[in-house]
């Protein structure tokens, strides 16, 4: 299927200035997403995945690179210019506790975007639309005048999703939408997001640290490490044939709920993520990598295609030595 590209990100960078020096939160990330698809961005805390999501939505100003949304280069759009575009790109936040204003009722929370973008005028229409949205995300009508603190995490996350859907967006950035929830609730929300995608043709960027969630959800997966993409491939390919040493380690570190049966041997990686401040021009994963050798010190590897659609940034893979 040759779908239309809805979002293209080219060489996106976001640096923060800290007393210790430049913090490379996002450092040269590029990707494209087709309409109706899901891109999963995976990585550990501090790898820049959330910053990437927020920069794409221009909640943070990018330091460099280009963001092209629906054919428009929005990189240098001001807050005001962005405002009408907010109808088309939305976000679902991680923490269903802090992402809803505690002093607003469910009705106010869900109708806020409708009123703000003047999608509907009459009070009656707004209320009907709110009720319709509540039904879409599976919230019972009786919660309409309830405050978020009276609800559990799963229901709050449903409010967050309803808010995002209220403006009929094309793209939704989901930043760890289920990591604060219990497994049984997690499954409910994941099913809901999936259903909505099929029904409304939504495009998702799904940011998470949980590889099993991403595998279930995404068409393509990008693995990030210290602000850069180290591997990108279609979901099935990545899980069947991970190439980058970090991806391999990440996959094998997931504790699988299997007992007794044949279980893949785990590869533990040593050490912890290094500081993203003032990085030298060498492979960023080198210090934790079992395969590192002299050539890894020479330069910071770029993504290259090893098979159609499968990109890896590793000097040794490029040389064909692993």
């Amino acid at each position, binding site marked *: 299927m040759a779908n239309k590209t809805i979002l293209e990100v080219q060489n996106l960078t976001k640096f923060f200035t800290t007393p210790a020096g430049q913090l490379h939160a996002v450092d040269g990330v590029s990707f494209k997403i087709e309409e109706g698809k899901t891109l999963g961005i995976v990585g550990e805390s501090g790898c820049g995945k959330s910053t990437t999501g927020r920069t794409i939505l221009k909640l943070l100003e990018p330091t460099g690179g280009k963001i092209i949304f629906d054919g428009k280069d929005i990189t240098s759009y001001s807050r005001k210019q962005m405002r009408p575009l907010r109808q088309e790109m939305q976000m679902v936040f991680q923490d269903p506790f802090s992402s809803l204003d505690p002093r607003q009722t469910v009705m106010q929370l869900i109708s806020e975007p409708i009123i703000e973008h003047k999608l509907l005028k009459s009070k009656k229409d707004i209320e009907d639309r709110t009720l319709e949205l509540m039904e879409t995300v599976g919230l019972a009508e009786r919660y309409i005048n309830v405050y978020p603190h009276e609800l559990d995490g799963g229901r709050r996350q449903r409010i967050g999703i309803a808010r995002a859907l209220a403006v009929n967006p094309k793209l939704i950035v989901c930043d760890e939408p289920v990591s604060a929830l219990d*497994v*049984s609730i997690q499954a*409910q929300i994941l099913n809901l997001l999936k259903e909505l995608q099929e029904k409304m043709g939504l495009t998702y960027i799904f940011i998470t640290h949980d590889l099993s969630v991403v595998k279930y959800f995404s068409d393509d997966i990008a693995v990030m490490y210290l602000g850069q993409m180290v591997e990108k491939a279609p*979901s099935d390919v990545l899980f069947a044939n991970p190439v980058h040493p970090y991806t391999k380690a990440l996959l094998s*570190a997931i*504790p699988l*709920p299997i007992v*007794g049966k044949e279980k893949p041997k785990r590869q533990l990686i040593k050490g912890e993520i290094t500081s993203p401040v003032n990085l030298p021009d060498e492979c960023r994963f080198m210090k934790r990598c079992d395969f590192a050798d002299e050539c890894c010190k020479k330069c910071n590897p770029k993504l290259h295609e090893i098979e159609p659609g499968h990109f890896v940034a590793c000097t040794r893979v490029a040389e064909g030595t692993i």
Partner: protein
Amino acid sequence: MAEDLVLDIKDLVVHYETEDADVCAVNGIDIQISKKRTLGLVGETGAGKTTTALSILNLIPNPPGVIKNGSIHLDGKDILKMSQEDLQKVRGNDVAMIFQDPMTALNPVMTVGEQIGESIMLHQNISKQEAFEKAKEMLKMVGIAESRAYDYPHQFSGGMKQRVVIAIALACSPQLLIADEPTTALDVTIQAQVLELMKQLIQEKEMAMLLITHDLGVVAEVCEDVAVMYAGRIVEKGTADDVFNHMRHPYTEGLFDSLPNLKQRGEQLVPIRGLMPDPSDLPPGCSFAPRCPYATEACTKSIPPLKSVEGSKTHFVACTAYENPDFSLRRNENGK
């Protein structure tokens, strides 16, 4: 097995009595752990896992928490009958606890070495110098260079801090280690390292461990025994093999069906419908009945007791449905 019993909880009932309601957090649970074994206590938020753990150290905040019933024997001594002073000796010395968040568990103005040393000095009659030397040994044991004993907690990363917390917990060689979601705040690669370390130390030090978690993957990795908790009761318990490969309770099945881990892309997850019941207003009979796909009239009549599965000595389940000898879970049927 019985002679090595480290922890023996019988019919524990803990309620939180607030002015609004009586919250039934733990409603009659039995747990046994013997030496060198790890029991995984699995359940969702609000199942009563943490309350169970806190009662073992008699640390339930009172008020509003009240231990209504039951006994907790630690190495033969009843914790609930001990005086405050005896309890203080037990805490940290015989039983140690690791909490979820390593960021707040350490004192930011003391060096790591001093903190480990302090916990040793509390329970053993040795000098500060000796304690510090011992602290260094402990650090080495958890895989941190001895030279870092002079560093402050903020100089450590999250995974390293959790290692320090483990070192403090193990400093007095406790018989029982209670770990409450010890790796939830850590990244997967770090989690794998820490779990590996804990597994190895349990064997080396001949301890018993109670691991509280919501992550079935972690349980599979570390635990020999598993107890599944729902609304303050244990609904199924057995060896890891019993519970993971021959599960009997519909809730256990629901938990596994909700996991995206083993699913293929495109497959629908099967969530458990509804929500955990309000612990101050539990439904009559089996607490899981309102969410259970197999529930019948009989389920709401009485609370099912834990019964042995087909005469097994290790595997127990609390489900009324098994009174019908032909009953089996959908998952098990497909497997057959």
